[in-house]
């Protein structure tokens, strides 16, 4: 039983009048009084390059946005990563908080995890850092090519070569060569995607997940991208191609140190 009533001003004490004819709330019983908050209109988030998404994921995304909005000032909130892939085979939810102020990442992460019970990875950055990431980092471009955002955003950036950063990222993909037998399909896909995204970036191409997947299928002559994810690869053929692409990409990174075709930084 719930009743809505107004607080009236009294001479010594204020009071809440409730109707005499009612069910429950007998005189002498204790009740809780709390303010009646009007339900806020939740703005629908923007979906970038997402053709379809499970309704429950959209609800989770809205919940995450609402939690972050309550605890920290922000310009935008972007949800990205494997959470947006079809199905529920994701490890965690990547959440970018775009804020000029200092937000407590750990508190935000804990608040979200306490509420939705899903592991969350928070990336906190300001607008300037986000633009810099988009200009210099192929993985950022790929992450933001497919996302859910609280607010609409448009970033027009030009690829800039930061050879140190690209070398650092590319090195991650080297582990596939030594550890083919130890890695599962998702790990192989992740490392291959990382390498191919860097290669495309060095060719001055804009990167999104679909373009990178298409390039992987073409380079490794796959039927579809699930051949990697499901770990059904011809080891010798795959590794031969992989080493070849790795070497070419590494050479491109090294060439960019002295003779960049694009604008170079660092």
């Amino acid at each position, binding site marked *: 039983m719930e009743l809505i009533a107004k607080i009236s001003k009294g001479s010594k004490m204020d009071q809440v009048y409730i109707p005499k004819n009612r069910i429950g709330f007998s005189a002498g019983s204790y009740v809780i009084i709390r303010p009646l908050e009007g339900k806020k209109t939740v703005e629908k988030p923007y979906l970038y390059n997402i053709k379809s998404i499970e309704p429950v994921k959209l609800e989770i995304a809205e919940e995450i946005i609402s939690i972050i909005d309550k605890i920290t000032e922000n310009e935008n909130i972007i949800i990205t990563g494997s959470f947006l892939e079809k199905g529920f085979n994701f490890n965690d939810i990547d959440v970018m908080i775009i804020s000029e102020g200092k937000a407590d990442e750990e508190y935000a992460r804990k608040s979200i995890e306490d509420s939705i019970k899903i592991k969350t*990875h928070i*990336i906190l*950055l300001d607008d300037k*850092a986000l633009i*810099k*990431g988009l200009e*210099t*980092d192929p*993985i950022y471009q790929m992450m933001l090519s497919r996302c859910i955002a609280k607010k609409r955003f448009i970033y027009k950036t030009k690829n800039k070569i*930061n*050879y*140190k*950063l690209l*070398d*650092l*990222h590319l*090195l*991650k993909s*080297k*582990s596939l060569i*030594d*550890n083919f037998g*130890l890695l599962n399909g998702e790990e192989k896909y992740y490392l291959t995607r990382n390498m191919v995204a860097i290669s495309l970036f060095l060719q001055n191409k804009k990167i999104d997940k679909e373009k990178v997947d298409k390039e992987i299928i073409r380079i490794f002559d796959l039927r579809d991208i699930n051949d990697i994810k499901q770990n059904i690869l011809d080891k010798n053929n795959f590794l031969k191609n992989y080493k070849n692409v790795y070497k070419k990409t590494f050479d491109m990174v*090294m*060439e960019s*140190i*002295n003779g960049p075709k694009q604008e170079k930084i*660092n």
Partner: protein
Amino acid sequence: MAQNRKRLIDLFIGNISNSVMHKILEKATEDKELAGRYNKELSTSLEIAKKYREKINPVNASLPDKDIEYIKSRITNKVKNELMQRISKGYENIDLDLVEGLVNDALKDTKVV
């Protein structure tokens, strides 16, 4: 069996070298913000190396001196070769003096020494 052990040690060396390389390149990057953002992924090679280490006997004690010498010199050479390759292309701020200390730290971390 001996062949298998040697293979495991080689895989361990490959991954530890990769991890040490990552640390040195990370330190060579002036843009700490961008480099730091991928910190959680830097440990991938180290974690894989630990998995291989768990399969190399003795698992819970230091490896024999002969193995330690072999592993240490292979990692050091591998890392230095990779770094020299970069330096020769004009890569700036790579500090070769960091190699030995980071190799020792990694070997301690994985209970090789």
